């Protein structure tokens, strides 16, 4: 069921491209001598990030955009392994081993150093890098990922022990191979006053930071002091292009070598891939769901919530909103991660008979709800599906005898969300529930958690490759913060706490599966999808990607 690393490759020139080229040539005869922007070639890798950088300080960087650069210019003890399965490989560490639940011994390679004359990388640098993140005075926003750290014990110039307060499984999947695992130069940071902003003070990876042109691009160049496998490119230019369609045009114009493309463009690109390009589809870790605010009196009735769960038809959403390029999800934990469930409790397809029965049992009438949405346009296919669903819904409404049931769904303003909300609107109309779509732009939407009157919400959270990260937002303590459904379950909270330190992977897997069952049993969640990451790239490069399709630039090669 899961599309894993599906690739379409096109090489050379086919008939269509020959004709395209011929007509372009005919047009261009009027302007002989006009310079042409050929595909980004040679030793420069031109790629794209969807946002501008925020911080080059691992204590303050806020996600993948910063980490894509930090991952290339800083070293970690371990790095994510490129490929289709989540795993790690040694980086700055020559060896690393878990001595017991709370002690991890490491030895650094002897050829690691920092640029700008900051010398060899030592265990003191590791200690400084990790301990500053949990330092109260620094106020690092990434502290939760290092929350289990007690201290780092330096046992030699290049050896040490990471001492944890308690066993912490995400250490191997988030803490060490992701943002907080970046090792910085103690001397360089202390000279800079303890923290930096957007300009790195010393690099240690295969690349170093050359320049940052705000709102335009970041340029990396090979680190001359790097002793590992030589950097493949003379320059990596990472352009800030927030719009995926603009990035696609830039790729087709030959100005990018690698970019993520929109799900809506996948079919078009499969049919008409630019020459010498490959389209690769990867599963994503993001999770999308419809949440129901348990504290809202309109949604107190569990039968009504279960009816809503049963009425939402996920395959219709996959077809219309995701253009068939994503798969339905079974929970908040994506395939390939510990805790993923093969099936959800409520199923994927709408079960209108069950939904109608539950509605009847709920005894609800005059329910009106609002779904909040992030605001963008809808496509024709979706409109047709909605129309079809409405016809069915009208018929069922007449049969059910229900009236005046209406809810509001809150949604972030992106076309995919609007389409999904409208399908949900149509689905729920079929069981006699009227849904009002409430569209929000980003900053307004992300503040909705505090709104106690919230009804339905179409939500999407990012994810790191450990289930602990997913469950952390739904514990009771997070109610009204990031737990917008105000789901409160003591067993769930206990699982979240215990599973962090559970070293038996089979047991851990079962714990997280149970956690998702609890979420679903509450009737507050209908899981939609994990989305997908389609990338397009030139055949002249060999991209190194995480299993979720995100780039690891330090490992990119030329073909």
């Amino acid at each position, binding site marked *: 069921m899961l599309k894993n690393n599906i690739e379409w490759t096109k090489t050379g020139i086919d008939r269509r491209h020959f004709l395209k080229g011929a007509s372009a040539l005919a*047009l261009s005869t009027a*302007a002989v001598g006009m310079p*042409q922007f050929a595909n980004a070639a040679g030793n420069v890798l031109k790629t794209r990030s969807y946002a501008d950088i925020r911080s080059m300080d691992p204590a303050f960087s806020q*996600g993948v955009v910063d980490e894509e650069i930090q991952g290339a210019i800083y070293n970690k003890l371990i790095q994510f392994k490129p490929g289709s399965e989540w795993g790690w490989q040694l980086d700055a560490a020559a060896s690393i081993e878990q001595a017991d639940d709370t002690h991890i011994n490491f030895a650094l390679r002897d050829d690691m150093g920092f640029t700008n004359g900051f010398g060899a990388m030592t265990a003191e640098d590791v200690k400084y890098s990790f301990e500053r993140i949990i330092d109260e005075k620094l106020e690092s926003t990434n*502290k939760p990922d290092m929350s289990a750290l007690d201290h780092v014990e330096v046992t030699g110039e290049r050896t040490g022990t990471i001492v944890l307060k308690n066993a912490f499984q995400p250490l191997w999947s988030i803490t060490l191979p992701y943002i907080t695992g970046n090792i910085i130069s103690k001397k360089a940071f202390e000279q800079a006053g303890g923290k930096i902003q957007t300009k790195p003070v010393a690099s240690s990876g295969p690349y170093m930071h050359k320049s940052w042109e705000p*709102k335009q691009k970041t340029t990396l160049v090979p680190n001359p002091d790097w002793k590992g496998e030589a950097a493949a490119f003379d320059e990596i230019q990472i352009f800030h292009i927030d719009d995926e369609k603009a990035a696609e045009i830039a790729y087709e114009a030959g100005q990018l070598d690698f970019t993520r493309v929109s799900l809506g463009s996948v079919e078009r690109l499969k049919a008409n891939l630019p020459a010498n390009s490959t389209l690769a589809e990867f599963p994503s870790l993001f999770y999308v769901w419809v949440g129901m605010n348990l504290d809202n009196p309109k949604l107190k009735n569990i039968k009504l919530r279960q009816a809503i769960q049963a009425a939402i038809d996920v395959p219709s959403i996959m077809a219309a909103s995701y253009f068939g390029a994503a798969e339905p999800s079974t929970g908040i934990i994506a395939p390939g991660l510990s805790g993923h469930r093969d099936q959800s409790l409520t199923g994927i397809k709408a079960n209108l008979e069950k939904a109608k029965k539950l509605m009847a049992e709920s005894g609800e009438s005059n329910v009106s709800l609002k779904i909040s949405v992030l605001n963008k346009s809808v496509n024709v296919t979706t409109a047709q599906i909605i129309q079809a669903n409405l016809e069915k819904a009208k018929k069922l409404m007449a049969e059910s005898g229900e009236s005046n049931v209406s809810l509001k769904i809150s949604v972030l303003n992106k076309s995919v969300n609007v389409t999904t909300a409208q399908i949900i609107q149509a689905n729920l109309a079929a069981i006699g529930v009227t849904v009002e779509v409430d569209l929000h*732009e980003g900053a307004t939407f992300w503040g909705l958690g505090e709104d106690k009157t919230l009804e339905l919400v179409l939500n999407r959270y990012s994810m790191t490759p450990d289930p602990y990260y997913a469950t952390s937002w739904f514990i009771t303590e997070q109610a009204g913060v990031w737990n917008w459904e105000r789901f409160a379950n003591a067993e769930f909270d206990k699982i979240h706490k215990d599973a962090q330190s559970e070293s038996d992977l089979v047991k851990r897997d079962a714990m997280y599966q149970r956690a998702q069952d609890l979420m679903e049993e509450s009737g507050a969640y209908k899981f939609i999808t994990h989305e997908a990451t389609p990338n397009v790239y030139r055949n002249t490069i060999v991209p190194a990607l995480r299993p979720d399709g995100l780039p690891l630039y330090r490992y990119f090669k030329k073909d």
Partner: protein
Amino acid sequence: MIGYIFKRLGLAAIITVLAVTLLFLIIHMIPGDPITTMLGPRATPELRAALEERMGLDKPLPIQIVLFFTNMLRGDLGTDVFSGRAVTAIVFGQLPYTLALIFVSITWAAILGITLGCYSAVNRNSLGDRLAGILSVSVIAVPAFVVSLYSLLLFAVKLKWFPAIGAGEPGNLPDQIWHLVLPSLAIGLSWVGYIARLVRASMLEVLGEGHIRTARAFGLPKSWITYKYALRLAILPTVTVIGVGMGFLLSAAVFTEIVFSRPGLGKLVIDSITTRNYPVVMGSVLFSTLIFVASTTLADIINALLDPRTRKGS
């Protein structure tokens, strides 16, 4: 004339203060939590409180406005909460890109539009005049975003003559000019038609006036009459329109900067509004207002210089 200039500058200062105050209020009234947006999901309550204090959001709105203007007079527009950089540095980093885009767009549009307008007026009802009329109305009707997308697809994707994204390498002027071609075409094109129609209408009015007839009767050369006497008067409404047009070009630049992934003030405003980055929003808005007010004031002053009746009338 000096008195007139001072009067105009005073008015410009009042307009700027009122506009910026209004925008300050609007920005703070729109829903959305800047602290959550800026700090992300992992922020502790202590961190949120500290940032709120640092941004001055814990103070009443009137105090925030007074503080903004007081700091502004000292040249301090605050710091970007994400990067910690000074807002003035951020805005001055982006401003040249937008100014270059607007200036190049309006310059080429004015040169072509005025030439076309003069030609049409002098050759009234000729085939050339009619063709120029059709062309002008056609380009006025095409929105800038349509020109942006089609010029991108044709000249960048298909023909690969011009770049699709960016503003060129810093310090490389030819490269930066090359990157300006398509964006300035996109936002300048409709102005060609607009200016051409305006100049044609003004020229026809002036060419029918008594002093022009007298000049013709004295046997002065046609080009001398057209460009020295008629155009000088006919250009006055165009100068005013170009001055006001700078403001419209600023808003057109927002879209163009997004489509062409160019840095600039427009993109900065959009990004900072969506992240509720108040200091950067206010810094960008202040400079956008200044550009608009400065261009309209400059147009008024040029008008007064060209036509003494204007300054006497005011």
